[in-house]
Structure formats: C-alpha cells, structure tokens
C-alpha cells in the first residue's frame, strides 16, 4: 500500500524538524502548563469553571489547527517549490494516496498530541476526562478539517514564504477568537459573532463538550459542523493540489 510508504516518509520528515517538533508538541505543552497552572491557582476560577480540563481540550484543538494551517501549508508549498511534488507526479503514485498519507500523518500526530496533553492534564492538574466516541471522532474530524485547509493554502499559494505568512495570519486570530484562552462569552458581541463562524470554535467546543463536560448533545452538533467543514476543505484541498503543471 503506497499510503503507508507516504505516511512513513512524511511523518519521519516532520518529526525530524526541530521547529516542527517545537511548535507541534513542546510549545502546546508549555502553553498548557502555563495556562493550567494559572487556572489551578486557588481563588482563580478556571474558564467556565472547567479548570485545567478547559485548556487541555482548547490548546489541543488549537495546535491541531496550527499543525494543519501553518505546518502542512509550509511543508506542502515547500515540497511543491523544490520539485518533489513534480517528481511524484511523474510516478504512478496517485494524488489521493499522497494526500491521504499526509492527512493520516497529521491525524496520528494529533492523536499523540492529544494523548500527551491529556496525560499531563491528568497527572499534573488532576483534570478528569471522559474519552469516548465523540471526543475521538471530533479529534479526527478536526484534523481532517485543518489538514484540508492547509492543503488548500499550499495548493493556492505558490510561494512558500507567502503561504507561511497567510497560514499565520489565519491561525493566530482564529486561535485568539475561538475560545482557546478565554471563553467566547467573555468577548464583545461583535467578536462573538465572528467566533460563531470559525471552524476552530466548533472543534474546540466539541472537544470540550465531549471530553470534559460530557454534554454529548452539543458535542454531536459540533461534530456535524466540523465534519461538514472537513468535507468541504478536503474537497477544495484536493482540487487545488496540482498533480501536473499547466
């Protein structure tokens, strides 16, 4: 199966990048430690009364998003610029197996990240979770969503430097507006209406509702919305990833 070959190569290539490792794993861990420490301080109520669990879910969601929107965008546009994609298009490797291998790699990295974050939250901050179908499904769908968005940006923007800039310009405001660091309800009304259409809002909320709050009715709604976004972005990402030159 070519998919496994692609998965192995892209995952190894990703894991050997120091900056990739830092921003994929170390940075979210540091951020979680910082935020959860503050929220665990006696007298400081955690967001929405959820304590460290809030940040475990939100920071995990946020960094699954940045891995797709910034990481995959950078890698995809770089591989296109240096001709690796052109070389692959001259081989019998089908485009969908290449894309699927990359998405699978992102999904596995997301699951590892979630595992690390959950373990840290449980051990250091005594956070409690309910790992269930919804939380795993929403994590996988969220990975697909942001992999699709990353593929779309890498496909549309030819220059890797511009792609990186655009990825950052999308990821950071989305992270700030989607309830990663504070509840959306704490923001002004006009920002709440912006947050209401951002995919990370649904992903983050769905992960919190399924993992920490155990509100499966809202989690199901979030799962449906995240799945719809994922399908849309994967289709656009597949269409914009060019397997041959004009």
């Amino acid at each position, binding site marked *: 199966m*070519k998919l*496994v*070959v*692609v998965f*192995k*190569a*892209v995952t*190894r*290539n990703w894991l*050997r*990048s120091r900056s990739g490792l830092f921003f994929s794993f170390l940075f979210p861990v540091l951020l979680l430690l910082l935020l959860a420490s503050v929220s665990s301080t006696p007298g400081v109520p955690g967001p929405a009364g959820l304590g460290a669990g809030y940040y475990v879910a939100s920071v995990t969601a946020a960094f699954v998003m940045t891995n797709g929107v910034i990481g995959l965008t950078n890698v995809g546009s770089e591989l296109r610029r*240096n*001709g*690796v994609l*052109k*070389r*692959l*298009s*001259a*081989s*019998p*490797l*089908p485009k969908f197996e290449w894309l699927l291998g990359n998405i699978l790699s992102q999904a596995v990295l997301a699951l590892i990240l979630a595992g690390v974050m959950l373990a840290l939250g449980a051990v250091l901050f005594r956070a409690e979770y309910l790992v269930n179908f919804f939380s795993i499904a929403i994590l996988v769908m969220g990975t697909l969503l942001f992999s699709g968005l990353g593929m779309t940006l890498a496909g549309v923007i030819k220059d890797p430097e511009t792609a990186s800039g655009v990825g950052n310009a999308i990821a950071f405001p989305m992270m700030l507006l989607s309830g990663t660091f504070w509840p959306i309800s704490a923001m002004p009304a006009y920002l709440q209406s912006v947050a209401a259409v951002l995919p990370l809002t649904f992903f983050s909320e769905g992960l919190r509702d399924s993992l920490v709050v155990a509100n499966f009715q809202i989690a199901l709604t979030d799962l449906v919305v995240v799945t719809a976004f994922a399908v849309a972005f994967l289709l656009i990402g597949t269409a914009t990833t060019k397997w*041959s*030159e*004009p």
Partner: protein
Amino acid sequence: MGAPVVRVEGLVKRYGGATALDGVSFEVGKGEVFGLLGPNGAGKTTTVEILEGVRAKTAGVATVLGEDPSDLKRGRSVKRKMGVLPQDFSAFARLTVRENLEFFAGIYDSPVNVPELIGLLKLEEDSQKRFALLSGGSKQRVGVAAALVNDPEIVFLDEPTIGLDPEARRATWKVISDLKDRGKTVVLTTHYMDEAEKLSDRIGILVKGKLAVLGSPAELIGRFGGSKTIVFKNGGDAVFGTLRRFFDGATMEGQDVVLPFENLRDLDVAMGALVGRGLDSDVALRQPTLEEVFLRFAGFRMTESGDAV
C-alpha cells in the same frame, strides 16, 4: 531504429501568448539514447515534462510506449515503466539518502534492491546522510538513483550532470552507457556538447521551441560541421598575413590563426609559405564538432551554464 518508444508529432506548448514549443516532431526507438540539445529556454524541459505526463500540452501528439502519459488511467501504467530525473531534483530534506530511495522504491510495484542501487551510484558514503546536507553532486546522483529505482524501460534525464564535478560527471556517463547496454531507452536533455556527442545515438537540436536538426552525432558533424581546420597556435598577425595571401578562408581567433583544411596539399602550401618567411608556429589539426553544428543552426554559441552568447 527499432519500434518507437517515444513519439512526438507537431508538439505545441504555449504559455499565454508565448510559444515554448512550436511543432516539434521526433521519434525515439527502443534501446536508443536520444539527446535533446539546446540552450536554456529552448524547450528541452518542456518537451520532457510533457512526455513524463507532468505538464499539459497545447496541441500535437506525445506518446510513450504507445500511451499518452497525461491520460489519467493509462498514463499511470506508462509511469510505472518510466524513470524520471527532473531538473533540480530534490527529495525529503530530513530523510537520509537511503530512506529517500526506499520511499521512491515503495511507490513502485517492482522496485530494484535499494542497497545495490546505492552501490551502483557510488552513494555508500552518503547513504546515512540527510538529503539536505548533501553536496549538489550527491543530490544529483540520488536523483539519478531515484530515476532507476523501478528498473524502468525508458529513462528521462533532464540535465543529469549539471553541477557535477568531472569525476561525478564521468560516473553518470558510465551509468547512462550501462543503461544503453542493458537495452534501456534514454531521453537526455543537456546543454553540454561533449555529453550529447558522447552519449547520444541521435541528437535533436532545439532552438527557440523548434527542432532545428535531427541526426546521429557523426551525421550532423559530417553534414553540417564544416571542414577540418588547421590551427596555428599564437600565430598572430604575421602568420595570418602570410596565409591570407594563399587562403581566403584563413581567419583569426584571438592570436590563433585558423585555416580550413581540405587536403594535405593545403598543409604543404601553408607550411612552405611560413618557412619561406621564417615564421614558426605550433600547429594543431582541429576536427569539426557538434559545436559547429549548433552554431550553424542556432546562430550563437552556448556558455557552460547553457546561456546563449
């Protein structure tokens, strides 16, 4: 020529208003090494990329092993039998040479043995180094190895020796010769005259998107290379002035005096005239080369980097 493995007929490629290929036609037979020679921007890479199925054509026919490589379904079966070295080959930066070659091997159904391939391309010392840390020459050799990883029937090599030192260049030539010996078909693009002449059974010279001339190196040189010449090294104005009295065709190239050579009598006359005037000069016989053929059809010479001058 055997049955055509590559067939190009009236191939046209336009980018907006600019025409990159203007009705190019040629065939390549089984087991043949076909060289596409031309300066940068002549259309060599565009031609091979269309044949590799990675670039769309505007009009005309381009088939490999009887199939159109751009065809979604049939193209894939052709690509299984095709080896490709693109210009400026690159691979996964943080994978080692061996890992990269194992990746390329993994995307084909019947790959060759990767360690053997590493040995063939003399990449043993680099096999555990990450691709990003390799020298330009080693990267290029990894590219050649990746092009052979599926034991292809036809190999497209786009500027295979660009950036290589002389030793690595000769090693790559040996690999190409071995491919020919094993009955493989090779389509080679280059702007190195010596490379095209040494390796190719037939050469097509591309100039500004048109195939200017096609034939074996010997044929092209014999028909279009002009006559042999005698070069009087550092002869200067005195030798030139003397020879010019006897030969209208005498010219100067820097301080060298160049005389078209028709027969031995010309040499006798020239040497007699020089001795008579007490002039002395080292003499060399210069055979016509592909460079003269290129100059004749292109109207300009090429630099080492493939630019027109």
